[in-house]
């Protein structure tokens, strides 16, 4: 946390908001009102200031997620290469709709916007790692390989 704060002017601690929230999220999985209040206090702002940031950004989560978060891109370039059909495939395989988490808490399936990987479409991020040029078969193999 001190390392994060050192990157910004001493009187602009609020600038550390995104890195701080991401750090907390990495440790806890998601952001609770308590952790938000704690971060806000460290940065010298009202808890609401952390709350509005937490709900603005798609990578920040205020609800629990599965152990593996699948962020599948269905924007134009990906869908032109099968992204939307991959989404239907994943919904069927996992038995949850977009946004859902499997009952065993293993997978959360999310639909995201362009991941800047359109030349190797379709793509998904699995816990922030890119997987590109996917087919239903390679997606199945990927999910099967996870403990």
């Amino acid at each position, binding site marked *: 946390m001190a390392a994060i704060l050192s990157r910004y002017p001493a009187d602009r601690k609020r600038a550390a908001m*995104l890195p701080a929230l991401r750090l907390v999220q990495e440790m806890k999985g998601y952001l609770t009102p308590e952790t938000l209040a704690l971060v806000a206090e460290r940065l010298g702002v009202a808890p609401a200031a952390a709350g509005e940031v937490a709900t*603005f950004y798609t990578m920040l989560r205020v609800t629990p997620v599965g152990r593996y978060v699948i962020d599948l891109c269905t924007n*134009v370039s990906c869908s032109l290469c099968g992204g939307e059909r991959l989404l239907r495939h994943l919904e069927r395989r996992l038995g949850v709709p977009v946004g859902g988490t499997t009952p065993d808490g293993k997978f959360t399936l999310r639909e995201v916007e362009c991941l800047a990987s*359109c030349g190797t479409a379709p793509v998904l991020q699995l816990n922030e790692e890119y997987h590109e*040029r996917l087919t239903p078969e390679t997606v199945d193999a990927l999910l099967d390989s996870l403990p």
Partner: protein
Amino acid sequence: MAAPAQLPPTRPATLLPTGGPAPGVERVVSRRWGRPQSWTLASYVADGGYRALKKALAMTPAAIIDEVKRSNLRGRGGAGFPTGMKWSFIPKDVPGSTGAPSKPRYLCVNGDESEPGTFKDRYILDNDPHALIEGMAIASYAIGAHTAYVYLRGEFKRQAERMEAAIAEAREHGFLGPNVAGSGFALEAHVHRGAGAYICGEETALLESLEGKRGWPRLKPPFPAVVGLFGCPTVVNNVETLANVPAILDRGAAWFAGLGTEKSGGTRLMCVSGHVRRPGVYEVPMKMTLRQLVVDVCGGPEEGRTIKAVIPGGSSSPVLAPHELDVACEFEALKNAGTMAGSGGVIVMDDTACLVRTLWRISKFYAEESCGQCTPCRDGTPWQEALLYRMENGTAEPGDLDKLISVANAICPFPPMGLGNTICPLGDAAALPVHSFVQKFRPEFEAHLREKRCPFPTPWGRSAGAYGPAAPVARGWS
């Protein structure tokens, strides 16, 4: 619930570029891509890296700005604004002070790369982070900034790690830090990661986001050059823009200008995706036409298919019909063709793709990403999406096409008359695709209304090949 599992990297940290230089092209930005360990300082210096920085530090800031102006370098982030001119807008030192400006200045690198269809900055960050750092150092010296932030989109985990490692390496070797290359000039650089919001690519939203707030664009003026990050003069430049700067200083403005056209210097990175045989990032001369790029360089659509539509500069840019493709990949030429160069994201659709489906997906994106500050954008974008959804799914009513146009008109009239009705250009970006798709492909929309269904068996096209064999990797890299 436990934190999500940390996965080991399942692939090498460097992603291989999928495109390559167009044949016979002088490479500037992609010159070093694909070389072994191209991202390390040792490799960069062996290729002549940081020579330009030393040269620049011996010049006056004004002379550097002049050199960049004469190179005709224009911003690669979307708007194509002349870079040297942007730097010159930073206010000169306040009189009376002892040479030191009264307020700090900042350089912010825009690595948000979220415009659908764009994936070039990612390759720069992966393959040549030191070129960006050298460009940042030169720019910072020219504008008098002692702190530079690299704003990277939140999803760029590997790229952020690589950039952080490169910054640490540069600092260790004295190319950053309190005494840059022994010149006495001080510069610290930091990576700042976003967290998933397209709007944070807009420069004032980026500054808000860096300050720890929601990414809400600011009203302009004041422009960032006067009131930017933390209320201080700030330059925001795209990754590719800055990665060009070392070559300009090294080989001279005249050489760089000579690579391009009269008004745009250098080459461009173009990102080609969608229905082409060889998608990827290609470094091309500005004079190359879109048709040459899509057909000759990228192989065009699959056997037996024809091109139906091409989006030339990211999903915000108005679409082009096949007969409009003989236009150069250059800012003025594309503007004269009624569209824009944008971010260089070329999306190709062949005759099997449904353009109503495509436009619906584009509209869904803008509805999702509108920040909600201005009424026309906040209310209009979901309405556009809903109308298009109805057309695609056969539940539209006869007047819906006119309604769609009137909603788009409320966000930004067509043809655009200067600025739209919104604080930032996202509103225009949401409306212009609607105007251009309907204007150029009206019969397809009417067919959806008439038949009360989507007439395409596989609306995203290329059904058999949709999951087809993976495209070949890394061609043409030395």
